[in-house]
């Protein structure tokens, strides 16, 4: 019975815990595979930059209608897409690479966001947007997160093959089709949408953690892309569950608890996974004949 008390009763006794679990798990389903692709495209930090870029949009939504879901979400998506589009365009038209132009635009965007919030809100509002409140997800927020998750998984399934081609051999894809840049932009849209979905629960900053940390762990365990995505999702789901339990029992903030659990999984992977630090560092005792 004590196991039941520890593992299940928080979710059975309290609605807010159930909602938090559903929200975090739905996010894991879509954000973790996105994270795998970000990592493989050497864009691991892009998620972080995009999370900052969302801020002014969310802030305008907040200024117009306070802490309400739809305006802040729509604003966030629009701001994120603007920054993605602008930095992509600048990198295509000038000598500046995409990471540089993205840095420029997201920093401006972030400053603009903080300024906008300071016009009307308090530090508490800013904290809410930056770090989220997974324990205060209402029905509408959950519907939004689950919709985002569903749309993301479906879109990813549709663009899977061209996306893989674009990562693996972009020049070849360019030689047979003009679809490459469309796919790239669709993918960036998915990144933005998932971060916006995540900021309700985890805040704009921690949403990136749920996206990237499970992906980083999965890379160390798996060789194949498909298994990497699946493992990342599994790690995301387990981190959500354990993180919420820990936060409930010890009484610490739940968003950071979820991300720290994912961080612990990454540490475990670094130490024990086949491609982790320890096993990569040692020369194997035996070798094969071919």
């Amino acid at each position, binding site marked *: 019975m004590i196991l039941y008390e520890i593992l299940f009763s928080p979710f059975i006794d309290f609605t807010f815990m159930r909602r938090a679990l559903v929200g975090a798990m739905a996010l894991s389903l879509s954000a973790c595979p996105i994270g795998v692709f970000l990592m493989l495209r050497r864009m691991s930090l892009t998620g972080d930059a995009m999370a900052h870029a969302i801020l002014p949009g969310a802030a305008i939504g907040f200024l117009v209608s306070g802490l309400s879901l739809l305006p802040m979400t729509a604003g966030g998506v629009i701001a994120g897409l603007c920054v993605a589009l602008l930095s992509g365009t600048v990198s295509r038209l000038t000598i500046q690479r995409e990471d540089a132009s993205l840095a420029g635009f997201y920093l401006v965007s972030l400053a603009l966001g903080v300024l906008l919030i300071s016009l009307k809100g308090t530090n508490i509002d800013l904290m809410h947007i930056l770090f989220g409140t997974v324990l205060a997800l209402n029905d509408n927020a959950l519907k939004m997160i689950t919709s985002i998750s569903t749309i993301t998984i479906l879109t990813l399934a549709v663009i899977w093959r061209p996306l893989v081609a674009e990562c*693996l*051999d972009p020049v070849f894809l360019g*030689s047979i*089709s003009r679809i490459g840049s469309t796919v790239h932009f669709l993918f960036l849209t998915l990144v933005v949408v998932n971060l916006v979905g995540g900021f309700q629960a985890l805040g704009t900053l921690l949403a990136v953690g749920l996206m990237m940390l499970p992906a980083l762990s999965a890379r160390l365990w798996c*060789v194949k892309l498909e298994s990497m995505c699946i493992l990342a999702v599994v790690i995301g789901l387990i981190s959500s569950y354990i993180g919420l339990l820990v936060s409930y029992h010890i009484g610490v903030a739940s968003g950071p608890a979820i991300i720290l659990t994912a961080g612990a999984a990454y540490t475990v992977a670094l130490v024990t996974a086949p491609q982790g630090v320890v096993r990569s560092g040692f020369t194997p005792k035996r070798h094969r004949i071919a």
Partner: protein
Amino acid sequence: MTVPQFNLRDLTLGYEAHPAVHHLNGAFEAGSMTAVYGANGSGKSTLLKGLMGELKPLSGSIERFDLDTRDIAYLPQVREIDRSFPASVHDLVSLGLLRKTGFFAAVSKQQREEIATALAAVGLAGFERRPVGSLSGGQLQRSLFARVLLQNAKVILLDEPFSAIDSKTVSDLLSVINRWHFEQRTIIAVLHDADLIRSHFPDTLILAREPVAWGRSKDALKPENMLKARRMNEAWDENASWCNEGAA
């Protein structure tokens, strides 16, 4: 009786108004097999990009006869491929079928057999499940040739297919190219080895930004032309004066 595949009229290709290929005239005939020879930076890869339609001419034109993008197969330089990406040889080679299957259909059983046949043809039978990252340079190049085989295209553009490849692999892949030539496909290959060109490629275009020579390989690769190709001024002159040729 020769039919042109590409007709180049006073073609200038380049970047930011600086030419990489300067005032090139001539034609690649259908079913011809041409080597493009020249120093680094002489515009060889740029020319391939222009032929593919990926790069718009700064001036002049490229006329394509009876060609759609799907009729052109392109073999990129090996370094363009992200070998750390967790893909298998099957994933890489099956990209050659994308034009036929579209982006969404599954690879059918018959197509799996086509892939197996193509891999066997380049000496990689049974390599389908191997990760791309575990291949040697020669094996990767062989798998790229298998992908071109699957594309089954009228025109085949090869960008430095033999750089850093051992002689056994080169001779295997040359026999694949010879088969394409026999099948009347148009082949244009960027190459650095003049001896190899003389013994295997009927025609040669020598570039040094300006066209140096274009014709039968033994005539084109004369010592004075080779010298011109080597003496090319690679420097990028920011303030080079504007070219008036052809404008008048």
